């Protein structure tokens, strides 16, 4: 009798939902911080809380959001793609060179996509088959790619100018229907594709399993190598989309975005602030949206307040440091399972 009662009692007690409430704490903190920033900026900055500015924020953050999608998927699979910006520039360069020399837009796009798929595949091959750590492999491939393009195509130049009058360029930068621009549409499409990849495609399950425990996923017989290929090809394609948007908006492909590192930093910032841990296995599209929202609002507000780029960088650095310290306070690492590989 007693034992039955005890068993009943045990069954009645709700199992503690360990970590469920806390796991997304950083995401919530960031969401609240974003709202606070919006309120503060609305009162302190003239012209912040207008529909026009909202449209500017959306258009300007489109490429950041698209890049973050690629990076987030890679990071969830416990990888890291430091060649993302190099790929972005590469995709835009290939496309720009082709349409400048008179190739039709669909053909140019096709060539650019194929090139990106090949490059994403090479990254994944180095990581999954040659087994070079992702950080080093993508660092080296980034150097290689930028060097190759500048050497072979740009002949040492830093800048590739695109004809703004070109209908394709205008199409990529313009509005589809009044009020919704092409970049915003592509951003929404990429977010939807990311959501599908992570939540509805079987690869998504493998991605989360790899991020949680790579060895366990491999030993369970999951196709970790082919999934790695999918992940890096996906990030290469997002880089291409972001590159097209950015090139069309500014009318130029600027290789200095690779060397100064600010954009890569912003992308990592978005992913981390959104609450996706670098060790992978957690997070989703919602985290990307939250992260992008904060960075986009911050960038917009600081630009409206006429902060220099250096000041903006410094403030973003401080935000990152605050965020990881907060995250560490909210989700302290377990000293028993903490390993050296987690950087």
């Amino acid at each position, binding site marked *: 009798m007693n034992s039955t009662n005890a068993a009943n009692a045990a069954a009645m007690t709700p199992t503690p939902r360990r970590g469920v409430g806390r796991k997304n704490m950083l995401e919530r903190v960031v969401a609240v911080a974003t709202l606070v920033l919006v309120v503060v900026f609305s009162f302190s900055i003239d012209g912040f809380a207008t529909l026009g500015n909202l449209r500017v924020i959306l258009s300007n953050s489109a490429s950041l959001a698209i890049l973050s999608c690629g990076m987030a998927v890679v990071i969830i699979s416990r990888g890291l793609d430091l060649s993302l910006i190099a790929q972005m520039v590469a995709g835009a360069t290939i496309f720009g060179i082709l349409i400048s020399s008179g190739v039709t837009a669909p053909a140019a796009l096709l060539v650019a996509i194929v090139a990106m798929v090949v490059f994403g595949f090479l990254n994944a091959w180095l990581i999954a088959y*040659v087994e070079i750590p992702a950080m080093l492999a993508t660092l080296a491939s*980034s150097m290689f790619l930028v060097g190759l393009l500048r050497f072979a195509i740009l002949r040492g130049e830093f800048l590739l100018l695109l004809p703004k009058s070109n209908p394709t360029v205008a199409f990529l930068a313009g509005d589809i229907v009044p009020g919704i621009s092409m970049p915003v549409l592509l951003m929404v499409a990429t977010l939807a594709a990311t959501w599908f990849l992570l939540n509805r495609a079987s690869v998504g399950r493998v991605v989360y399993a790899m991020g949680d425990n790579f060895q366990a996923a491999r030993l369970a017989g999951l196709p970790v190598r082919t999934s790695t290929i999918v992940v890096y090809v996906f990030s290469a394609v997002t880089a291409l989309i972001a590159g097209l948007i950015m090139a069309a908006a500014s009318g130029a492909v600027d290789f200095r975005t690779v060397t100064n590192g600010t954009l890569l930093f912003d992308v990592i910032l978005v992913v981390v602030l959104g609450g996706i841990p670098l060790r992978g296995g957690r997070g989703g599209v919602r985290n990307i949206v939250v992260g992008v929202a904060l960075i986009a609002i911050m960038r917009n507000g600081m630009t409206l307040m006429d902060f220099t780029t250096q000041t903006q960088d410094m403030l973003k650095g401080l935000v990152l440091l605050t965020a990881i310290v907060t995250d560490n306070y909210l989700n302290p690492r377990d000293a028993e399972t903490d390993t050296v590989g987690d950087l």
Partner: protein
Amino acid sequence: MAVDIDFPSLPKQRVPRFVLSPRRILADVLSKGWVESLIPFVALLCVVAGVLATTNGYFEGSNLRNLAQYAADGGLVVLALLVVVAVGGIDLSVGSNFAMSAFVALFCFHILQLPVPAVLLASLLAGATIGAVNGFIAGLLGCGALLTTLGTMITTRGLYTLASQAQLVEISSSARIDDLWDWIGFEKVLTLPVGFWALAVVAVLVLIMFRQTRIGWHILAVGGNRKAARHGGIRVKSTIFFAYVLAGVIVGLSGFLFAARQNSVGSDTGIGMEFFVLTALVVGLGGFVPGRGAVVSVLIGFATIYILNNAMINAGFRGDFVQLSMGAIIVVILAIDVKFRKNRHRLLASTYLDPVSFDAGTVEGMRGLMPDETAPKLKDARILASGRVDGPEDVLLDAAGNLYCGTRDGYLYRLNAPDHAEAEVLAKIGGRPLGLALDREGRIVACVAGMGLVRVTMDGQVELLTDQTERSLLSVQDDTTIRMADDLDIGPDGTIYFTDATKRYDIENWGLDLLEGRPNGRLLSYDPATRRTRTVCDNLVFPNGVCLAHDGKHLLVASTWDCSILIFDLARLSDGPRVLLSGLPGYPDNINRASDGGYWVALAGMRNPVFDEAMRHPGVRRRMTRHVPPTNWLFGNLNIGGVLKVDGAGKVVDAFWDAPDGPLYMITSMREHEGELYLGGVTNDKIGCLKLDKADPTWRGPESYWGGRS
């Protein structure tokens, strides 16, 4: 009663002075620890060779001095990164930190007009401050190192740009000149620039720190395994904090040297430096390896990248092409290194077995005694302690008739007289106890594979006598450790003679030594009086059983794969062995004295013509071990064995075979005691006891040996 042995008339056994084989040298080199540092070294050699082939006068003194001048700051930053990586972190902020420290030095020198030592101190402090921020967040708070240092990298870079833009005009218009400042920047000491000497000193200090100091060991322990370090009582967090601060100080020094040399900073100072030094570190360490303080390897990696970079720019290549090639080269070096690391043990395994043509000769002196010619006499053996002992390789009887044997699980058992039915533990030794002998004081001396020579008293006290001998000349691998102590006997003066059956294989792989067929074993001696171990005779073919002759002047040693019994003259050991008996039908194991002045020789297994033929063809055996699963290998016949009776002059006079269906297999040892023969087998779970017809029923081993002399 014993027959005198006519030693000088016996044929000499040829023993090679040393064994040289390219395959063995390759295998031995592959199993060395330093082989992992070989790849960065080879990469450096390739780069140097490439530069030599394409550029004239690159390695002349003036150019080398020039290189050394600019190498200092990069080299120092690589060392700083090494310290952080060794503790298990990463520091992306080194480039910004470098620029900031250089700016602080210029600011203190030109604007504040401080004396140069104070400027140095300020630079170091600036570096240490950024290191301390990193260390506080990544170490004390325990946040991720990559993000933390990414944050400090961006923040510091922003601060630096703001500060340097504000002060640059004033700094460049300052006219202060200081002798010490210029000495640091431009002078040469012993033909090399001051900065290079600073790099050398810091490198030596870091090397000493990792090798000799407590904090250095703590850093490596934390980097190797944080959890183990914490459980070992190391204060992990403060160790990480210290490593970051130290790295910051080194970067600060580097920034100071840069400032003294350049006397200016620009907006691009230190940009991309973290990638450059990370590349150098990766090439040097062969991947991103925490917990290794390989200062020399990392500096080699740095030299490789630095010279490559420099030579390409000198040769007139554009920066973009250099970038392209660097990316490709890093990928190639990493790929080679990762693959080499992963497959090194496979390469080692496929080259380790190094067979040689080997001929044990024809079977001789066995007419009328072969298993098909006589009745299997061991069939009548009484079985003792069945299922109670696991693998009694050797059996030993004391004067009271108690039986001792070692077992596979590392115990020494005693089976009490008279019925020997129950096995009780005398001592737990560990390892794999093999040969046993009683010394004059009635203690058991045991050869233990994997340990060495062990002495056990009758109340179970275990004492390790020796586990090392002299290192042989011309061996790539350290062969001082006694790997497979097999059997022993004790000389009249108390010297223990024992065999190390093979220097190349552990006991579980003894079969591979047969497939190799090389002289890998040695005869050793241990003198309890001086506690000295000596190699009596190196390069014997699987020396196994050891037995002192009845006359107390000669030593018999079974050479198992050679199917022969060797004999040494104790008075002239250096003359080497002669062959007492060869052409045995099986593989001799232990040898022991018999009551009638002869000897008992255990045969662990039988030769067969097919395997004898395979022994003459090393290629067959090498291909077999590579392509055929071990269960299907050709091997000697271990299913049948027996005991040979040899007379005092070395002639086989009788044979006791076991029946094909048992009950005993693979006999490795036998002892005569009061007219009975006790039989042990390394794979048996029992001990056999055979009544002998023509034996002295009062003869006991220890008394006949020690009793007659004392």
